[in-house]
């Protein structure tokens, strides 16, 4: 039993909870922390037709909340959270996702991040398709949405724990009492307050282990915005629910497609990647074997010690059991480690439960830092979550700082005496604790790679051109954890992604580099259209994409385009139709996403970005940036120059060969960019044409005006 918490209501409002109709509550909730007000707004027919739900609703609310001049820490910036029409369905795998959007402190533009846990579905079942939070409070503010009694409160709660695990646990107990499964909490932590890459933890109550678990909306500093608003937590309490709660248009059809997909996963996951036993940890060694696992700040793609971070190591550490982050998910990939004892920080010597790690964390805070100790990976994973810090940005930004240290661009006098050699786990952990405390070099690092580059150049005279090449960020966001040097399509997957280099738009490395399924620019550009659209669609509907293509039907290999896993896409079209009553085909899903995808691109433009110059990536994402890298794979690169580009490399120095290869690869990237823009219906500067926005029905007066301001009139 935790210490009882004290709360003081500073605003409250009762509301009538609507019955859901075909997956929609039909209204959204706006909370203004500055004037402590609540507003319930209707979801219009046009909103549903154009934006579908989920990320689409978030973007529409955010677009209307901010101007092109809004900064991330301005009061009018909004944190928007939503589910989606299928969100909360307790019989279809992967139906519990929430999507969060805001204006990011890292990029200055629109950020989106998807996350498991119960909050999104509970919010919808409590009467709201989306939540929009604007303004700022004095601090220690908790928003409590009680879906049981139909009451919303802003509370002042002074004696809450600082870090996220304690916060989730305390708020769950306080508001849930004996019914903790009815509670979901969103919180960040002290690291989110002192860095630009704070994450949000979304909780769910693990009844079997009798404890609160957390999933993370990691990317882009949404937790930082949350903390800046003076929020300590969002809490929703949900009544009991069932498959009927969404009031699906055709319950029998829903049951049929849910049963088919569930059966596929139950039968095939044990024969494929065993995600129900090991989550995404199996990816580590596959990436390493294909020279795709980031090591030492993306210099290389493999390391002899990578086996220390392999799936079998973490499977031995995971607490066994069926671990889904939403009801009815047969993928059940949300594993964790019980009884872990940190060796540093406030939890030193205490037994804790670690939620994770997943592949991205293993690669980001492990191999990319030259750390091949699984226990250090667990400790960094734990403290990142507890402090509200994104493991991917922490890993990639720390790797950059270590590279700068190794390259003598900075030294101990700049790091406060820390030895930032690759592999120094104590320094990595020290940086993390500094971020939580808001002190030391951790504060510099916590501003992200883009800011570090500027700072090191301005303050220490560090080589700006070299840092530009090896600083793995684009649009201000740190890269996620894949080596893209040998896959032009994945370079596009990273560089042309709307929010920055996160693989959730397009993960094409295997199709391109390993299977060679898209040798031409046309094929690459087609895939850089289709995959981002389909992956966007999951975020519109409240769904996880893992059940789509991480477990595939037995006959998938015999289909015309195995990578698209059309067997499952057909089930998803049936799923959407059965819940919403809108009869759709898989092709219709692409068009649904196109509307939102192009709207988000226009949103970037509104914020002063969204053009070709922002779609460029550091050279290390395209090829060897240094002599060391080139010579480590000299045979490959020499052969590339000779066979692909007809260059006689005899007598050339490594630096000359690097320059020659760079010229060719950068040229290829520009050609790819042209092809993708054309396929997406954009101008050569990366702006959707007037014809495109008209075709998609997003030609609002403000959009047309925005296009005209950028010279786009056709």
């Amino acid at each position: 039993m935790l210490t009882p918490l004290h709360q003081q209501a500073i605003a409250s409002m009762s509301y009538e909870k609507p019955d859901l109709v075909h997956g929609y509550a039909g209204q959204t909730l706006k909370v203004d922390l500055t004037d402590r007000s609540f507003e319930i707004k209707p979801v219009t027919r046009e909103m549903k037709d154009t934006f579908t739900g989920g990320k689409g609703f978030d973007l529409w609310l955010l677009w209307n909340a901010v101007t092109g001049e809004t900064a991330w820490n301005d009061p009018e910036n909004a944190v928007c959270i939503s589910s989606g029409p299928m969100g909360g369905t307790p019989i279809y795998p992967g139906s519990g996702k929430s999507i969060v959007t805001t204006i990011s402190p890292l990029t200055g533009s629109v950020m989106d991040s998807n996350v498991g846990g119960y909050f999104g579905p509970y919010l919808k079942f409590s009467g709201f398709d989306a939540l929009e939070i604007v303004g700022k409070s004095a601090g220690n503010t908790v928003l409590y949405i009680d879906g049981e009694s139909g009451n919303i409160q802003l509370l002042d709660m002074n004696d809450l724990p600082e870090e996220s695990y304690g916060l989730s646990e305390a708020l769950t107990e306080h508001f849930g009492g004996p019914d903790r499964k009815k509670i979901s909490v969103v919180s960040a932590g002290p690291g989110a307050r002192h860095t630009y890459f704070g994450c949000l933890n979304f909780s769910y109550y693990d009844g079997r282990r009798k404890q609160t678990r957390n999933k993370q909306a990691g990317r882009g500093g949404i937790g930082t915005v949350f903390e800046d608003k003076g929020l300590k937590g969002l809490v929703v309490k949900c009544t009991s629910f069932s498959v009927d709660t969404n009031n699906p248009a055709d319950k029998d059809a829903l049951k049929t497609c849910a049963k088919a997909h569930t059966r596929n996963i139950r039968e095939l996951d044990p024969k494929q990647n065993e995600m129900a036993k090991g989550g995404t940890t199996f990816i580590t060694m596959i990436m390493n074997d294909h020279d795709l696992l980031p090591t030492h700040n993306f210099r290389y793609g493999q390391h002899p010690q990578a086996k220390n971070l392999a799936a079998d190591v973490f499977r031995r550490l995971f607490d066994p059991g069926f671990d889904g982050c939403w009801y009815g998910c047969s993928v059940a990939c949300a594993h964790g480690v019980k009884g872990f004892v940190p060796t540093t920080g406030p939890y030193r010597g205490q037994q804790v439960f670690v939620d994770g790690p997943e592949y991205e964390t293993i690669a980001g805070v492990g191999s990319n830092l030259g750390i091949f100790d699984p226990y250090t990976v667990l400790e960094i994973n734990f403290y990142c979550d507890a402090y509200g810090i994104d493991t991917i940005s922490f890993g990639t930004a720390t790797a950059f700082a270590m590279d700068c240290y190794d390259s003598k661009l900075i030294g101990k006098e700049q790091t406060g005496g820390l030895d930032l050699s690759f592999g120094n786990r104590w320094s990595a952990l020290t940086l993390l604790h500094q971020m939580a405390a808001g002190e030391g070099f951790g504060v510099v690092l916590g501003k992200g790679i883009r800011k570090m580059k500027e700072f090191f150049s301005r303050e220490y005279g560090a080589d700006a051109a070299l840092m530009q090449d090896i600083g793995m960020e684009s649009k201000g966001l740190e890269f996620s954890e894949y080596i893209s040097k040998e896959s032009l399509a994945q370079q596009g997957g990273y560089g042309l992604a709307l929010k920055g280099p996160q693989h959730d738009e397009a993960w094409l490395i295997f199709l391109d580099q390993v299977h060679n399924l898209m040798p031409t620019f046309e094929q690459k550009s087609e895939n850089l259209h289709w995959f981002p659209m389909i992956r966007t669609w999951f975020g519109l509907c409240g769904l996880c994409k893992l059940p789509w293509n991480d477990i595939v039907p037995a006959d998938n290999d015999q289909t015309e385009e195995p990578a698209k896993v059309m067997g499952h896409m057909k089930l998803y079209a049936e799923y959407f139709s059965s819940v919403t009553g809108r009869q759709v085909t898989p092709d219709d899903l692409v068009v649904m996403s196109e509307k939102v995808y192009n709207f988000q691109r226009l949103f970037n433009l509104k914020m002063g970005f969204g053009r070709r110059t922002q779609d460029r990536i550091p050279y290390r994402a395209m090829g060897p940036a240094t002599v060391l890298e080139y010579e480590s794979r000299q045979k490959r690169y020499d052969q590339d120059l000779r066979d692909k580009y007809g260059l006689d490399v005899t007598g050339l120095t490594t630096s000359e060969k690097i320059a020659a290869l760079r010229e060719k690869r950068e040229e290829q990237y520009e050609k790819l960019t042209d092809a993708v823009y054309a396929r997406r219906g954009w101008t050569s500067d990366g702006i959707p044409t007037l014809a495109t926005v008209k075709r998609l029905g997003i030609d609002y007066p403000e959009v047309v005006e925005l296009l005209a301001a950028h010279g786009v009139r056709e």
Partner: protein
Amino acid sequence: MIRVDDQEVQWFEGMTVTDLLKQIGYEGSCAVVRINETHVSRPTFDQTLVPDGAQVYLIPMIAGG
């Protein structure tokens, strides 16, 4: 004897993954196989021995993310 997906396949001493795929006449685009609980990738197919009695699965696609 080993099992490849749901079929029994004759095993021999020194059998590698490459040998196995050749023996079953596999012509698909498999870049990863699973031997019992361990994933093995194409770059190491030539060097990886398949133990007698193993359960082998041909992993159809690695989708990532």
